[in-house]
């Protein structure tokens, strides 16, 4: 019997497809793109949460010292087109991640993935021709609409009016 590829472990390590797995999109279908975007948006919004907790904690010294300017000055420094461009991306990513999460929740619950059928040519999976795919497009459209609203609040109201 041949020895495992990596000594010391019971099973050979199989790292194929682990690194760069999500970014491998040469034959990606629609759902695979949604998955890639779900991962990317989740990572970015999750990291933003950490920064947001640090940023909002500045209100504590403002409250304790009675100096409202500690907070107001920080907010003033963040009322820039650059910071608002960042917030616009966060808003778009958060909306996309939330709505696509609903699609995933429904699919995991068996909703919108179609009924099983006999495998017949051309063997297109029912789940990829069902309601969940329409839902994917619908949620992309809603994401674009809500991002347009975020643009209105962050740029039109704040910088242009």
């Amino acid at each position: 019997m041949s020895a495992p590829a990596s000594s010391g472990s019971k099973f050979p390590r199989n790292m194929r497809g682990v690194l760069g797995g999500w970014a491998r999109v040469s034959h990606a279908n629609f759902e695979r793109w949604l998955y890639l975007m779900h991962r990317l948006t989740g990572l970015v919004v999750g990291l933003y949460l950490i920064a947001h907790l640090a940023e909002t904690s500045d209100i504590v010294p403002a409250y304790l010292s009675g100096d409202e300017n500690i907070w107001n000055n920080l907010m003033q420094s963040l009322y820039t087109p650059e910071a608002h461009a960042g917030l616009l991306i966060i808003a778009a990513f958060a909306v996309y991640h939330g709505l696509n999460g609903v699609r995933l929740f429904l699919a995991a619950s068996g909703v919108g993935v179609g009924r099983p059928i006999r495998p017949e040519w051309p063997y297109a999976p029912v789940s990829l021709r069902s309601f969940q795919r329409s839902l994917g497009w619908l949620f992309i459209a809603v994401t674009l609409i809500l991002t347009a609203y975020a643009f209105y609040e962050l740029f039109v109201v704040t910088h242009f009016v």
Partner: protein
Amino acid sequence: MVRESTLMWIQYITGLGILVLGALHFASLTFLVQGGYPNALSYANVVYDRYEDPLWAAALEAFLALLSYHVFNGFRVLLLELNQGSGWTKAVNVTMALAAIAAFLYGTRTILVFHLGGAI
């Protein structure tokens, strides 16, 4: 030990809660506040209208609790895909659980300081 399937169901449930409370959070920064977004983040609006209001504070606290689980469990899933092995799995599980608790406690301090007279 909690099963992975249970952790993922909690991930979905917390995600649905975040969707509702996140919508409320965005609304409280835009059309629910007088003057819209440019006025939403002034000290007066943030502290007197939201942090000091028990209902808003409770909603923020619930939002923070759901996010702490959802974000760090999400990071945990991403990190577990990067490597294999029981040592790595244990290290990632423990680190992400501690990070979630730390983020929750740090955010809680910001929300509750106004209700405890600056005691924390």
